[in-house]
């Protein structure tokens, strides 16, 4: 006898009526949802081997316990396949982690989305896109896993846009913002291994994040050349004074150029950290730093992030095209840190 599902039940006559009820109840992100039936919810729980009353996370400031049952219901609504459920669960564990600090990115006018970077074998098994059109449409796993996490934020944590979620402009990544690292073609150490996991483990890294900022460099055949363009675009992005995490997403052509020059992720981080510093004079002239310009302010430099380790480097994106991107984190690394969780199966 499987454990009882305790959520309230609503009876409707048709599929259309079920979808409209979800809108009427305020359970949708704006797109149609898959009506969460008991069979669908149980398939999710079974795939993740979770009892419905298992607590996935607890948000103390909201006094909300996020149970497996509620995660499963929202995963069904998002359109997930049951085998995606362990990734959704790991993502929810990540945003409920104290280091991610839900209270800020779940509510802030800064409009953070949950960037989710999937590493390890599960990314290939579930066909989570790591290539062409990385942040765009076309892959069910990418679009529904992130949507499920955002629906949990809405329906369980109460981050309702315009009420608790007060993002001033927000961005489309708040619908879903999931990528995988292209471990098959990358010559570099995968993100999860850099963050202390084994290559054969599967993980999801969550980062409170702005939208992707694309940059273009078709001229250079050296790591320094490509990364000089990146650093120039990046230097005054995001919360310059907050020093948050950044994610650097290096796509195929740039990856081959940079790796061809013998550089790994450590060298990328150090170069970008060094070349994204702003003078105090510039920060004051552009109304980012307070106070009058002092005599030595042209020489005084402030790094964009506190440490090179605050830069997360991910190999992903299409093989062709001289484009890559950087993603500024929300607020500051002191306020919300990127968190990596193992995907348990």
């Amino acid at each position: 006898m499987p454990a009882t599902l305790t959520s309230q039940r609503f009876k409707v006559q048709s599929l259309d009526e079920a979808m409209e009820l979800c809108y009427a109840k305020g359970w949708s992100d704006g797109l149609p949802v898959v009506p969460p039936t008991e069979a669908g919810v149980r398939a999710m729980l079974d795939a993740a081997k979770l009892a419905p009353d298992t607590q996935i996370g607890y948000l103390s400031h909201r006094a909300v316990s996020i149970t497996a049952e509620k995660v499963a219901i929202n995963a069904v609504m998002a359109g997930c396949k049951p085998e995606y459920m362990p990734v959704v669960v790991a993502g929810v564990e990540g945003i409920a982690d104290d280091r991610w600090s839900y209270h800020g990115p779940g509510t802030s006018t800064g409009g953070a989305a949950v960037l989710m970077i999937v590493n390890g074998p599960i990314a290939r098994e579930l066909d989570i896109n790591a290539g062409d059109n990385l942040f765009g449409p076309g892959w069910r796993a990418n679009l529904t896993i992130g949507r499920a996490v955002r629906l949990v934020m809405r329906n369980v944590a109460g981050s309702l846009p315009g009420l608790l979620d007060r993002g001033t402009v927000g961005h489309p990544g708040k619908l879903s913002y999931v990528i995988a690292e292209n471990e098959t073609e990358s010559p570099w150490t995968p993100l999860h291994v850099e963050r202390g996991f084994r290559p054969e483990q599967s993980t999801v890294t969550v980062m409170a994040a702005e939208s992707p900022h694309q940059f273009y460099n078709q001229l250079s055949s050296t790591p320094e050349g490509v990364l000089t363009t990146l650093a120039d675009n990046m230097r005054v992005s995001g919360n310059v004074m907050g020093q948050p995490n950044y994610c650097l997403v290096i796509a195929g052509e740039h990856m081959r150029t940079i790796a061809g020059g013998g550089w790994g992720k450590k060298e990328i981080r150090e170069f970008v950290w060094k070349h994204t510093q702003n003078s105090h004079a510039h920060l004051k002239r552009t109304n980012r730093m307070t106070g009058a310009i002092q005599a030595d302010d042209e020489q005084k430099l402030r790094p964009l992030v506190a440490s090179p380790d605050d830069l997360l480097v991910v190999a992903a994106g299409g093989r062709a095209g001289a484009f890559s991107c950087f993603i500024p984190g929300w607020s500051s690394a002191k306020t919300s840190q990127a968190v990596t969780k193992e995907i348990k199966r």
Partner: protein
Amino acid sequence: MIEILDPTVAASTQPIAFAPRPRALEGKRVALIENTKYNSDRLLARIGDMLKEEYGVAEWKMYRKHNAGVPAHQEIIEAIKTSADVVVAGIGD
């Protein structure tokens, strides 16, 4: 017929006891909790001064949170318990 499940949850209830409200502010000690946002200290200092000038509070003292995205930390809560009768806390953008 289709039966669907509610994806939402109500926050668990917590017993919250409110401190007794003072009948007047005259002679009271005021704690101001500053959330680190730009100008929030100036705004609160002005509020503190107005409370002194117009309501006769005895003094005000400002406490700074670690940052705007987190609740006030235990250390300042403990300090406020012993040093203040009234607290002004808020968040502004």
